[in-house]
Structure formats: C-alpha cells, structure tokens
C-alpha cells in the first residue's frame, strides 16, 4: 500500500509541475502577445499558480462542494447513510469519519473530496440515495472512501482547480490578445525597436494556438491518471466491503440511468463516481473520458471469484482487458492484505420488496424537506404534513382528514 501511495505522490508532483509548466508557458506567450513582456506574463502566471494552489489545497473541497450544491447532513438527518459511512470508515481504518453531504439532484452520482485523510468529505445525490439498497450504497461509499484512503482526493481537487485556471487564462488571455492586437498597433511606443508587424503577429498566432491546445493537453494528462485511480478505488471498495457484487450492481443501476448531473462542469467531472457527461453511444475505448467504461468496471468486479484483494482485482483486470500489465504493479498489489470470501452465486442485483423502495424514497424526501426548511406536522390521522416555510404561522388543513393545524 505504501508503494502505491508513494508512487501516487510522485505522480501527483510530476503532474502538478507539468500543469504549472503549461501555465507558465501560456503566461509567457500571452505576456508577449498582450504587453510585449514575456517576463511580466510569466510572473503573473506564477503568482496565479501559487495563489490558486494554496486556495485549492486549503479550500478546494469547499469550493467543489458548493459548486455542486452539496449540503452537509448530521447523523439524525439520515441514520442509514451515516451508519454506512461510519462502517466503511472502520473497515478502511480511517482516523476520523468524513463529512457527509447530500446533493439535491435526481441524477445518480457521488463523489469524495478533501485534502487529506483527516479532512475529507463524501457527497451523494438524493437520486442515488433513493435508488440503492444498503449493500449497493455500501459499495459506492466504500469506493469513495477508497479514493480518500488512496490519497487521490487531493490530487484530483488541486488538478481540477488548476485545469480550470488554465482554461480561464487561455479564454480571457486569447480574447485580450485579439482585442489588444487590434488596437495595439498604436500603443507600441516609439522607444521600442519595432521589428515590424511580422514578428509580433507570429507570436500572437503561436500564443492563440497554445491557448486552444494547452487546455486540451492538460486535460488529456489529467484523464489518463484519473482513469487509473478509478480502477484502484473499485478494488479498494471490494476489499473493504468484502462484497464486490454490491458495487457491481450499484454500477449497473448507474449505467442504466443517464440523467445529467445539474451542476457538473468539465473541471469537476472526474470527481464523480461515474462520468456525469456519459453518453450511451460513446465508444468503450474513449480515451477522452475521465472514467473507464462502466460495463468494464462491472465485469472486472464480477470476475473476482473467491478472493478479495488487490492481487485478485489485478488478475481480473488483466483477464477482462486482455492486457499483460495490470492496473497496478504486482508488488504494490501484494503488499496490501487481502482476504478470502466465497463469492455469491447470484449474478445480478438482488430483488428487493417494493416496500423497501418506498421506504427509502420516503426517507430521502423527508430529508430533503427538512433541509429546505419545511416544518413537519404529524396529524392524528397518521399523515405527515410538510409545510413550506412561506406558510409558517398560518393555519393549514390536513388533506386526508381535514383537521386544522397551526404551522
């Protein structure tokens, strides 16, 4: 485990440095293109880089959580979810339980964020909370906690903010350059040796080209690493729950639904458990995707028979993908203790009684009402009245029996 974490850490540093290099490169070219000063541009870029890295490190998780519209919940709000998260915290031997957030969204997704093991958060959409039974929920939460434990979370949080910066710089910088170029001819002071429009124009063209390409390259780097992390988190989920079928059937439910996540954008997409922009028609070997294809993840999980360990996951990965190299080195896989378990004989999701589904839906909608500041009144006839905050202080009638209540 330690080799895996160490190689993750080195890779993180290299990745961040590479992205920083892009940032500096863009800064220099934009500086030359806009203000005729390469060093000025570099200084601005480096300053921006440092400030944003610090911001991402200390506030990255709260930025991402508020962009997603996530709201923190306490134990009383949803005991089942809280219990599941705490169970996985114990199984993964985390020192403290992560903060739990709910996103008011009918789509099915979840993500983890935070800068280290002691300051982590897990968020899940209300849609997903309704749809999954306890085993599947446990698989999904275990996957997210796997991200936290494998320290993917800091990497992904920082990189998504940096990627966003590169995108913003390129966007505004290229526009500034175009406008600057149009009116810049007159601003070129006489004290400079004006080499003529040709030299400056070439630099502007190169800068514009880079402004378009750099975000793409930065994203590609990001994507390759983020896919690998997803496989590792799947393996961790199987290890912690000792039940790969839980995550597998949860992923099936996720694959079947294509409702888009409301507040996801390009920068935050990789943090979700499945790609919020997935398109059913996309080719399975789409290397521009942040996540590996869901069907493949399901097959690998179901190919783990009789044993739950990183080695088994690695073997399953090699078998399903017909590749000689696994998703992790065999030494790193062997260094993490695994366990034997007898694989379940069923191949599909467990059928559950309709009442359980209704109970879950009711549980989640009650929670959402509470978070939206509704007041809950229990009528004598057994109905639970949910009164919107606008009607507070007025008299309301129960729709079933007609009794009046004071809100």
């Amino acid at each position, binding site marked *: 485990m330690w080799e895996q974490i160490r190689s993750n850490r080195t890779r993180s540093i290299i990745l961040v440095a590479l992205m920083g290099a892009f940032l500096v490169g863009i800064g220099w070219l934009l500086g030359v293109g806009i203000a005729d000063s390469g060093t000025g541009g570099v200084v601005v870029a480096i300053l921006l880089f440092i400030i944003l890295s610090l911001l991402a490190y200390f506030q990255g998780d709260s930025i991402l959580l508020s962009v997603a519209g996530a709201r923190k919940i306490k134990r009383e709000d949803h*005991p089942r979810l809280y*219990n599941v998260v*705490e*169970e996985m915290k114990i*199984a993964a*031997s985390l020192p403290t339980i992560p903060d739990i957030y709910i996103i008011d969204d009918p789509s099915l997704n979840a993500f983890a964020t935070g800068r280290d093991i002691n300051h982590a958060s897990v968020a899940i959409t209300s849609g997903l909370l309704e749809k999954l039974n306890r085993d599947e929920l446990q698989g999904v939460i275990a996957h997210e906690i796997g991200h936290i434990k494998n320290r993917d979370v800091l990497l992904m949080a920082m990189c998504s903010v940096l990627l966003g910066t590169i995108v913003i710089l390129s966007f505004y910088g290229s526009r500034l350059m175009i406008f600057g170029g149009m009116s810049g001819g007159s601003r070129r002071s006489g004290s400079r040796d004006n080499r003529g429009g040709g030299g400056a124009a070439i630099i502007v063209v190169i800068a514009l080209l880079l402004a378009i390409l750099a975000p793409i390259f930065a994203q590609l780097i990001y994507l390759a690493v983020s896919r690998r992390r997803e496989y590792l988190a799947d393996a961790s989920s199987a290890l912690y729950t*000792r039940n790969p079928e839980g995550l597998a059937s949860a992923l099936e439910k996720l694959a079947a639904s294509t409702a888009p996540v409301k507040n996801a954008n390009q920068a935050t997409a990789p943090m979700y458990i499945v790609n919020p922009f997935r398109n059913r028609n996309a080719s399975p070997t789409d290397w521009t995707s942040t996540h590996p294809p869901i069907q493949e993840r399901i097959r690998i999980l179901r190919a783990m028979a009789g044993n739950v360990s990183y080695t088994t996951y690695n073997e399953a990965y090699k078998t399903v993908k017909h590749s000689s190299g696994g998703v992790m080195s065999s030494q790193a896989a062997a260094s993490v*203790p695994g*366990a034997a378990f007898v694989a379940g004989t069923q191949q599909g999701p467990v059928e559950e009684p309709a009442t359980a589904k209704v109970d879950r839906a009711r549980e989640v909608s009650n929670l959402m009402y509470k978070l939206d500041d509704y007041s809950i009144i229990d009528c004598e006839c057994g109905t639970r009245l949910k009164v919107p905050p606008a009607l507070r202080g007025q008299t309301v009638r129960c729709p079933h029996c007609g009794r009046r209540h004071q809100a």
Partner: protein
Amino acid sequence: MWILWVVLAIVVIFLLWLWGSYNGLVQARLQVKNSWSQIDVQLKRRFDLIPNLVETVKGYKNFERDTLEAVTKARTAVQQVPEGNIADRAKAEGELGAALGRLMVVVERYPELKANQNFLALQEELTGTENRISFSRQAYNDSVQGYNVKTQTFPSNIVANMFNFKKEEPFLQATENEAERKAPKVSF
C-alpha cells in the same frame, strides 16, 4: 580515496533503509493495537444500546418474557467478566450477540412493534452496530495480516528479528461458537 565515499554512501543507504523498515514495523504494530481497541469501542456501543431496546420492547404487552430476559442476563454476564480475560469476554459477547439475534427473530411476530418509529430507529442502530462490530473485527484482521506480512517476509523480517518484534499476532476467528459454524438445517 573515492572508495571511502562509496562505502560511506552504502552505509548511509543501509541506515536509511533500516530506519524506514523499523518505522514501518512500529506503525504496523500500533495499527494492530489501535484496531483491537476499536472493536472494544463498538462492543461498548452495543452494550449501551440494549437497555433502550429492552425498554421499548417491554412496553408491548404479551411480549415473550424469556427472550427479553435472556438478553438482559447475557448483558450482565458481559459486565461481570474480569478485565483482561479476552477468551471469556469474547465468549460472553458472542452469547449476547446470539441473544439479540433471537430477540430480533421474535419481534417479527409483533407487527405493531415493527411499525413503531422508536423501535425502527433502534433496529437500524442495532444493525449498524452489529455491522460496525464485524467491520472492526475485519479491520483488526487486516491490520494483523499487514503486521504478520511485515515481520515474516524477507527483508523486513531481518529488522523485525533485530529489534525483537513479536513474530505473529493471532487472527480473530469468525465465530467462537461451534454451532454457528455448522450450516443450519432446513426441514419443510
């Protein structure tokens, strides 16, 4: 002269490896101790949950006295095991778990009780607590395996021997109760 530097470099690298290895072993051992006490935390939690459960159930008239009493008796038995006696403690906790299981089965026959909000909340808590107990045992076993692997595989076993680390910690068995191990007999 340069050969002296090479030797020095080798010695330094060796010492660094020794340092890393030793710390790794210490961390593994501390992790074992920590996860062992985690189990205690969860067991205590179940212990504290039970009076509440018993009170809620007692209120329902005609509820089977014996099942309730078995739970209370098992709970007192756990309290009476002297500190430090791990084997007896494990046995007592196992019996408490079994008594609780029987209680939950009996509850199935009382539909009013099953619909009671209080009871439902308690039941979820109990399920959560039982799960937590198993997961903490699982985490303990995982940490034991990690420690054993470190003390027994080459090269870290050299360091382990040097500093007298205990060779092997015991795993927790899935159940101390032999009867639970046998498959249940189903007869129609």
